[in-house]
């Protein structure tokens, strides 16, 4: 923090003329902008980045209203109005993808959503701080692994020719393969989710538990409340606000279910059980070349998704939560 001596006299006089913070806010807009000219060297590159990579692509959605072909481009492709959307809504594959998306999302809400709460309560009830730390180390880890790794590992354990299949083979049961079974696939997806993210999900609940004042437990204990009663009447209610917020946000993103997770497994399981909206867009558009229809599907999903997230956030705020913006 060495300072140019030449700059000093100037700043002295400035300081003498009044508190600098107040004087800084004065002046015309042009003066204020000029005063902060160096700050803009920090802002402009980042702002341009978001403009180009978040806002400009929105223009690409124009393809949803075109019979787009990559050779003709945006300008050469004919406009077809809402024809792509009509095609979309009459396509049984879209309905199938929508149904799969919603079923998986609901299963997630039922099984994967409460899992971190249960795990946080269980870990919190451990008396040994060391064991707790150790278990946390283990359960947080899968969160950092990519979906490719997670599914590869599951494939080696539960897939055909994997560990479990081999063990069952030895006991006379052949043909076990949990990874390609279309009937149980949606449950498998939820199980993978719990395996990967449940541990990490406990962090936010631990934060809520840490905010509970100690004397509440003490008072309850003195009044004769058992460990169970303390958990039920003190810890659990303290988790409700966070849980409500997360639940509402989850409902808001109900049209998005683990994209990479499903993309990786869709070819193994088949479209009927494993196609969701996002994978539909990818397979139909990027691989299938139906750019217009796939973009229309993506746009529709994006618009409905944004509306859901925004209204979910509104509801969260109305319920007394903080919301996320």
């Amino acid at each position, binding site marked *: 923090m060495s300072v140019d001596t030449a700059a000093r006299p100037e*700043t002295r006089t400035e300081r003498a003329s009044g508190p600098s913070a107040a004087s800084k806010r004065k002046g015309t807009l042009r003066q204020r902008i000029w005063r902060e000219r160096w700050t803009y060297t920090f802002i402009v590159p980042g702002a341009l980045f978001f403009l180009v990579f978040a806002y400009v692509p929105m223009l690409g959605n124009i393809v949803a209203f075109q019979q787009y072909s990559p050779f003709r481009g945006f300008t050469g492709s004919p406009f077809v109005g809402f024809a792509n959307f009509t095609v979309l809504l009459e396509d049984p594959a879209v309905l199938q993808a929508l149904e799969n998306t919603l079923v998986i999302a609901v299963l997630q809400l039922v099984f994967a959503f409460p899992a971190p709460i249960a795990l946080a309560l269980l870990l919190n*009830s451990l008396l040994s701080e060391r064991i707790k730390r150790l278990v946390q180390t283990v359960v947080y880890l899968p969160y950092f692994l990519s979906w490719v790794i997670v599914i590869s590992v599951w*494939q080696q354990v539960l897939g055909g020719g994997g560990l479990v299949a081999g063990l069952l083979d030895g006991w006379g049961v052949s043909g076990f393969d949990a990874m390609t079974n279309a009937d149980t696939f949606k449950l498998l997806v939820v199980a993978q989710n719990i395996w990967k993210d449940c541990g990490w999900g406990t962090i*936010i609940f631990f934060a809520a538990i840490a905010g509970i004042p100690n004397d509440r437990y003490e008072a309850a204990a003195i009044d004769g409340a058992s*460990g169970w009663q303390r958990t039920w009447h003190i810890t659990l209610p303290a988790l409700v606000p966070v849980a409500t917020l997360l639940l509402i946000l989850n409902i808001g993103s109900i049209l998005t279910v683990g994209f990479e997770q499903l993309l990786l497994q869709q070819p193994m399981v088949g479209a009927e059980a494993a196609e969701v909206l996002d994978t539909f867009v990818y397979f139909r558009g990027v691989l299938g070349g139906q750019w217009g229809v796939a973009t229309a599907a993506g746009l529709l999903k994006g618009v409905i998704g944004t509306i859901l997230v925004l209204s979910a956030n509104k509801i969260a705020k109305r319920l007394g939560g903080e919301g996320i913006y």
Partner: protein
Amino acid sequence: MTALAQQRRQGAPWLSPPSPWIRAVKAVVIGLIVITMLYPLVYVIAMSFAAPSQARAGVVFPTEFSLDAYRAIFNGGTVTQGLQNSLFITLTGTLLSLTATSMLAWGLARTRQVPGAKFVLVMILATMFFSAGIIPNFMLVKYLGLLDSTWSLIIPGLISAFNMIVIRNFFQGLPEELIEAARIDGAGEWRIFLQIVLPLSKPVLAVMGLFYAVGYWNTYFNALLYINDSEKWPIQVVLQQYVLAGVQIPGAVVSPDQPPPPGVTLQMAVIVLATVPILVVYPFLQRYFTSGVLTGAVKG
């Protein structure tokens, strides 16, 4: 959070240990959870070192070991190439992301004084609620001529709005007098940023850097979308090809006069190689789990 919990434990004479029954049930449940989380990973690592005679389904833990799978993979070249690509993407990407994110965060830290900063901030926050979709993003990357370039895996995701907000929050929590004093003494924005703000922000930069690094290392879908040339694939795509799609690893032999190692151990070894860097940085990440930095990051 743990300090409080610890205090609760130590300073809580009213907390009697639960009955042996409950403790036993808890121990079993926790044991099962730990095994479920850990055993699949241990199994994959162990099997990647298994001798050919042990490399079959149904072996719970191999007893004879061999390094042939790794030798063969490093002879083959494609996996090594993938690891190199991923390493480049991760190192370059993390450095650029951290630079760009912290610069923007500092620029937007004083929204009240800087005309227009508030607008830019809102514009950036809004991007957290929508996304243009897969195909428009693909078209942009194509239009920019980034298809089949490693940069397509770095530039489109250079700044995460969420990480920017976390860093900005941290910057705003820095002692204001210090920065104001430097400003009065005539230090410019860049000087304040480089000599005061960044050195004071090492913890948050470390966490965000590790998160960026994990994200870059795990890049899969963008590579699938943007990169056709298998020479430029990151390790995740290589892994998907050889393990999930069942493609043979070309040239994966230990030596010409020896039969190649069994496919299973080769696959396991590729999984391990793709996982090792995460396992290496994990202890560093873990330092922040308890320090509260991360809790703040998760809560936003």
